[in-house]
């Protein structure tokens, strides 16, 4: 495998992690308002999936959308500024964490309504089909979202119309404070694909290459006009549902075990060094670059102006 490609995957994951941990710090320091949903622990899903598509393909995202957007190429300075609610943010401070978006890199928007992003992303896949532009869409959503009616309607429509959509369920075992077993009876969400005569695949969401492979195959199918695939990536969020979550619904031990043994970045780093014989110094220099990037992003955000209230009603209409 191409080392540059592998290091790219690592870089994306490390960028996400560094960004998220910095966001947590900045939130706790009082520099970020609102509700913040972090993606630490789930980096391999976004990184692996987005590596399988092209810059002008689209992604649909959720309330937990930082990782999806960074993996798709979102600029961390604009994103940090958005979370700081600054005019230089990618949404000019109007969106925040729940709606973080950069349409210039193919994001269709993070949607704060659970499962609402799925039906919209599906529409982008329809659009690609109608425009015969061979684009595909990756539609990210959580385990909890698959209990929403919208998930069902979108899956049925996508399968019926053979839309070029890859549905990626980031099954992190919880929907807010509710563990999987308390919100559905099945164990593998991929099973739900059967209800639409769609392929359903379970993949280890902590293994970036496994995600990449599964998504690559699904993307190929989609581009060939064979229709959508449901990929369930088993993963875990290291932090609470949002920052400040008391996390009464899971044990510290469970979290620690995942952090220790199933951290996608640790796992991939080890693999890079051992299996792919990557030099430690190559990794170190990526780390340094990213740490600097995020530090700069914070500076950029902190120095940016807040929006001007006299422009409040801009962009309600065209």
């Amino acid at each position: 495998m191409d080392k540059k490609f592998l290091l790219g995957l690592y870089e994306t994951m490390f960028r996400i992690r560094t960004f998220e941990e910095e966001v947590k710090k900045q939130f706790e320091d009082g520099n970020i308002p609102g509700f913040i949903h972090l993606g630490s622990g789930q980096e391999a899903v976004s990184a692996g999936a987005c590596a399988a598509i092209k810059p002008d393909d689209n992604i649909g995202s959720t309330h937990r959308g930082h990782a999806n957007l960074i993996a798709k190429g979102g600029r961390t300075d604009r994103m940090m500024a958005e979370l700081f609610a600054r005019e230089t943010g990618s949404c000019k401070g109007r969106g925040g964490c729940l709606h973080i978006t950069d349409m210039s890199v193919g994001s269709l928007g993070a949607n704060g309504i659970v499962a609402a992003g799925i039906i919209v992303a599906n529409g982008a896949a329809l659009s690609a089909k109608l425009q015969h532009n061979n684009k595909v869409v990756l539609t990210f959503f959580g385990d909890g979202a698959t209990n929403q009616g919208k998930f069902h309607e979108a899956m049925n429509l996508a399968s019926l119309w053979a839309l070029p959509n890859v549905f990626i369920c980031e099954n992190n075992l919880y929907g807010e404070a509710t563990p999987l077993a308390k919100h559905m009876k099945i164990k593998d969400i991929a099973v739900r694909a059967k209800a639409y005569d769609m392929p359903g695949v379970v993949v280890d969401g902590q293994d970036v290459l496994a995600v990449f492979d599964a998504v690559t195959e699904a993307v190929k199918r989609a581009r060939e006009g064979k229709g959508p695939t449901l990929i369930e990536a088993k993963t875990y969020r290291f932090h609470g549902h949002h920052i400040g979550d008391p996390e009464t619904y899971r044990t510290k031990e469970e979290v620690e075990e995942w952090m220790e043994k199933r951290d996608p970045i640790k796992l991939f780093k080890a693999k890079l060094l051992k299996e792919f014989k990557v030099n430690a110094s190559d990794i170190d220099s990526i780390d340094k670059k990213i740490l600097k990037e995020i530090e700069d992003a914070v500076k950029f955000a902190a120095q940016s102006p807040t929006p001007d209230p006299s422009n409040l009603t801009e962009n309600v209409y065209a």
Partner: protein
Amino acid sequence: MAEMKLITGKDAIRDALIEEMKRDPKVFLLGEDLEQATFGVTDGLIEEFGSERVRNTPISENAIVGAAIGAALTGMRPVAEIMFADFLMDAMDPIVNTMAKARFMTGGQAKVPMVIRTPSGAGLSAGAQHSQSPEALFMHIPGIKIAVPSTPYDMKGLLKTAIRSDDPVLFFEHKMLYYEGGDVHVGDYTLPFGKADIKRKGKDITIVAVLAMVKKALLAADMLAADGIEVEIVDPMTLNPLDMETIIGSLKKTKRLMTIEEGARTGGIGAEIAARVAEEALDYLDAPIKRLGGRDCPIPFSPVLEEAMYPTEDSIAAAVKQMLG
């Protein structure tokens, strides 16, 4: 002068769709049973434009609206049909929380050029879940434009404007107007949003009416004219934007205001218009404002009850006389 032809409301909608689809390859249709449509509006279009551009969907209102939003975000101009306006409730989340807000929430990155067409209104004994007129609800949702045409001419002209708009538009088609006739221009024309149309000139009272109530108001005005009462009828054409200038301009002349709508009176279109007048033009009122509308009641199946729900030409005329008397 442009050539005119007499057509029904249904055909006015249909003509607008056909002309816009021919004009712009980005325009496409999706909705339930478009192939054999409940009110026949889209019959034959699949033969003309193919099943790629006229897309018959499953019964999945959320997926329909969501698909339209996603397509609009990525360069298309979808025209979605919701089979009855009552079923808008089923897609309320994507309409209110995504469609209406996408441009704003993204700081102007997104544009959502789409139309949702939907038949509204009572008169067919279709009962409480197939007869509603929910237009007013959407006035409370910033980010959505709302068209409420009352004639074939307005339907065609406003629908073309809606399809070309870069904002999302909710387009209400009153079922009872589908089969009413009226003159339209042959070929292309558009009508502006936010510009009310004075459907009848008069000096004694201003009536603001929408959709099927315009005709009832006109019939009442005919009756009242026999008694020497000159009614001015203002049709706002769109509820958002709402042309208060024309309404208040008319009121300045007549000094009296009545609003007529088919949706429930409480919290309706008339409420907003009356409030705007009470804020901006109070001094011109020589009499209390009168709001007529649907009763605050679910819509009954029984034809005699259904009739009792709504203003009629007689009750309108009587209410006008009472105001002037």
